[in-house]
């Protein structure tokens, strides 16, 4: 009987366990998500925006090209070697006697550069001397034309004696900073030539020693890490050309609509402080927008060659020359260019140096602070008329819920805004699957209302409060695990509060958009 009872209880356990259904209940939650204020303050005073008359102005200044001495004249690492031997069979050298005395001209390989004089800002000579005889020797090195404060570079070294067939070796480094180097050679009319003078003698305390014409005294001088601060000579007939892109990332998010800009002018400015003849050409400046539409800028200097005048003065009194190309609504299609809302801009240019050859008799000059610089400058009111201008951004998401476990069933995003921009804004969310097919659209219940419909706040800034909701239905939540992308469309208009038609509006200084976003959601607890 007892056994029967136990078996019965066990059966009851199984039955009761298998019959139990899940328990669930709904809970209501509120969670803050975003609290932020967007404004343009971080763009002010960084050559993008400034304020005039209480409104923002675009004060854009961007450098497109900036090249200097290192880009035109460069001395690569170069090793100069002198191999010194007797011109006769042998000699017994008494103590303190000189047995080598040679002067040589060494050539720098600088391709089409023909330099006559350079001044080094930095650089070194790594010197290595080999002594083939079995006594210490004194080596005197002089570099005629290499001076610092008008003193010629001259060094003396005691070089160790050779041991057996292994020559004695001495290594030294000479700092060449601020040295001036005359590269015209012994006759004073050559280029890229460095003179060197070497003499070798035994020490007065040495023993007499036999030196033959098979004994090679070798001097290696490696010019390394040379940075110039001045160069004179002929810089060659060269063409520098490039095509460079610069992107305005924000415009990449424009998905539709249009804008109207006020009268706009843009200045392209070329500054030259290098003494050479040159001519330049801007091949094209174009942009492409999100839909692939390309607009090229037409106007003065585009596609035409123009000359760059040489600067005047010298080191401290150098006066650059400038060329300014102005593009405005009257002489170009600059408004169309910007209204295309291109996100990728491409500039192609070329500059030819010494286009007529060495007409300066080798007197091109470049200083440490000389440069060839191209900048673009724009100064215009930050005013815009937006007609359903749609800014779009896409976010990858991976939202997972298990349907038989605790989960969110539905909810509402509540957006409270404080808008001091004269724009109306409508927000729309597109929920897409992995193939970017639209599953659901969530539309804001109300727009973010333009500040022009509001009143002044305590800081004297006109603003308007708005509240809108985005309802996430149960059907949307059911599909949540299929949503892989959320596309946010922000549609802008600039309506006139009286006529309700879009108008050109300026952006007031200190305009802001305060955003508070919270989620109200229903969480179904399941156990």
């Amino acid at each position, binding site marked *: 009987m007892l056994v029967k009872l136990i078996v019965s209880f066990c059966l009851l356990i199984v039955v*009761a366990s298998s019959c139990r259904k899940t328990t669930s209940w709904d809970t209501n939650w509120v969670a803050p998500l975003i609290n932020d204020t967007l404004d343009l303050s971080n763009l002010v005073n960084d050559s993008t925006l400034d304020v005039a008359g209480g409104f923002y102005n675009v004060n854009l200044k961007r450098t497109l090209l900036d090249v200097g001495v290192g880009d035109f004249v460069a001395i690569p690492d170069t090793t100069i070697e002198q191999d010194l031997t007797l011109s006769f069979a042998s000699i017994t050298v008494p103590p303190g006697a000189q047995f080598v005395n040679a002067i040589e001209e060494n050539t720098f390989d600088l391709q089409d550069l023909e330099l006559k004089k350079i001044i080094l800002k930095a650089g070194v000579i790594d010197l290595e001397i080999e002594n083939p005889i079995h006594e210490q020797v004194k080596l005197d090195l002089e570099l005629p034309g290499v001076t610092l404060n008008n003193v010629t570079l001259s060094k003396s070294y005691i070089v160790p004696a050779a041991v057996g067939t292994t020559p004695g070796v001495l290594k030294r480094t000479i700092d060449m900073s601020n040295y001036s180097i005359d590269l015209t050679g012994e006759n004073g009319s050559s280029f890229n030539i460095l003179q060197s003078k070497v003499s070798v003698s035994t020490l007065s305390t040495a023993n007499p020693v036999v030196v033959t014409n098979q004994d090679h005294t070798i001097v290696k001088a490696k010019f390394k890490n040379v940075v110039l601060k001045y160069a004179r000579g002929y810089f060659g007939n060269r063409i520098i050309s490039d095509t460079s892109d610069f992107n305005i990332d924000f415009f990449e998010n424009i998905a539709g609509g249009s804008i109207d800009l006020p009268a706009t002018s843009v200045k392209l400015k070329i500054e030259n402080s290098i003494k050479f003849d040159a001519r330049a050409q801007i091949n094209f400046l174009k942009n492409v927008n999100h839909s692939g539409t390309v607009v090229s800028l037409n106007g003065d200097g585009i596609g035409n060659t123009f000359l760059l005048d040489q600067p005047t003065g010298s080191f401290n009194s150098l006066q650059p020359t400038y060329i300014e190309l102005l593009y405005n609504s009257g002489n170009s299609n600059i408004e169309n260019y910007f209204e295309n809302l291109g996100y990728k801009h491409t500039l192609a240019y070329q500059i030819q140096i010494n286009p007529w050859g060495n007409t300066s008799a080798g007197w091109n000059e470049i200083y440490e602070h000389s440069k060839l610089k191209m900048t673009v400058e724009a100064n215009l009111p930050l005013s815009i008329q937006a007609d359903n201008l749609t800014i779009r951004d896409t976010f990858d998401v991976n939202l997972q819920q298990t349907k038989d476990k605790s989960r969110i069933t539905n909810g509402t995003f509540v957006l409270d805004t404080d808008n001091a921009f004269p724009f109306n804004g409508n927000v729309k969310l597109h929920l897409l699957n992995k193939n970017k097919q639209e599953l659901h659209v969530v539309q804001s219940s109300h727009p973010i209302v333009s500040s022009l419909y509001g009143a002044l706040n305590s800081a004297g800034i006109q603003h308007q409060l708005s509240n809108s909701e985005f309802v996430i239905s149960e059907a949307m939540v059911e599909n949540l695990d299929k949503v892989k992308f959320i596309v946010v469309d922000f549609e802008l208009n600039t309506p006139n509060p009286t006529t309700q038609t879009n108008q050109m509006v300026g952006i007031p200084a200190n305009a802001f958009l305060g955003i508070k976003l919270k989620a109200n959601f229903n969480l179904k607890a399941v156990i």
Partner: protein
Amino acid sequence: MMKIGALLFAMVFVTSAFGQSMPMIYDTLETRKQEVVLDGAGQLSSTAVSNSLFNFFIKGGEIPENVRSDNYNQHNDLNRVGVIAQGELSYINYTVRPFEKKNWGILVKAGTLTTVSSRYRSGLFGLAFLGNEPFLGTTIDLSNSTATYIGAHKLGFGFIDLKSKSSVNLNVYGITNYNHGYLNNSSLTQDAQGYNAEVILNGQFEKTSRSTYFKGLGVGVDANFILPIDAFSKRSYIQFQVQNLGVAFLSHKVVRYSMDTTIQFNGFEINDFVGDGAIVNNGTSVFDAIGLKNDTITADPIALPFSIQVAKIIDEHSSNLLQSYYGIQAYYQKGAIPMVYAGLQVKPIEWFRFGASVSYGGFAKFRGGLYVQAVMKKINLGIATTNIVGMVSKKGFGQAYSFRINYRI
């Protein structure tokens, strides 16, 4: 039908006897040779949660909003809830006498034990069953809340005195579950719109780190001493009972989550959602954000969930129609308070008796109890409840049932 189901549920899932639900019937006869006892009991008790809610956890289903709200409104500032389920199968052989000079038999038992105990603030219940929306604009106190869950199986061997029926058992315990957590000074404050929140969290939660069935080993004793007391010209019997007094050692490390942090949160900034540094990309977890530390550590020994009872019990050989029983029982359980109880047994005929009792304490407030018992030649059968209201009404605060089957040879 529902009551029968609930009764069966309790008998099936909760097994262990409680002295106050069905008083020990003290039989000093020495005629028994062997005895098999199956007893079990369980209670689901609370000071604030009624069966209208508990029933959903027993039968399943969607808990309506009004049930959750009504139960929330029944809460005091500090509340208690507990589940204790215990069952044992004991075999007693009085003929095996391990000690020549003692009239002792042997007692072998196997059982299972599950306890869930909690003391909590009403706010914690509100958050769990209503969410935070009903509490916008207020501060929810979460302090001084604690919960412990221990599951174990036990196997014991001991001795029992043939005449007095006093017994001592040494048990080994296989720990199957251990979770423990508490919150000290903790609260959630929200503004009325739900745009700002301040969370103060100071607490700890630890759980076993492995998924093996047995997670630790323990040792403990059950002891049951019965002493005759002569007072007011009559003899009474007093029972001193200790169950599961011992310690357990977890064989694997425990994962301990601890936090002592104040978070003021009013939302992220836009830049937190865009670019390479976006919080969705940079691996920032919610745990990191709230300063939750996660350590895997060697656990300290844990006390088994023991109980101690002192009670006046029923004399089987008394010829009185009415006999009283009463006592006090204390649980080593977070959130539980000592329980006192008193009852009266009616024995209208020799083989049948029934009784009624009242109690206060444990995880509950005042409760009434009932039991019936049949005492036959070889079998005793008894069932009991210590929560009459809970048995018949959704307004009762929990349910408590027990049964005992004695088979004598």
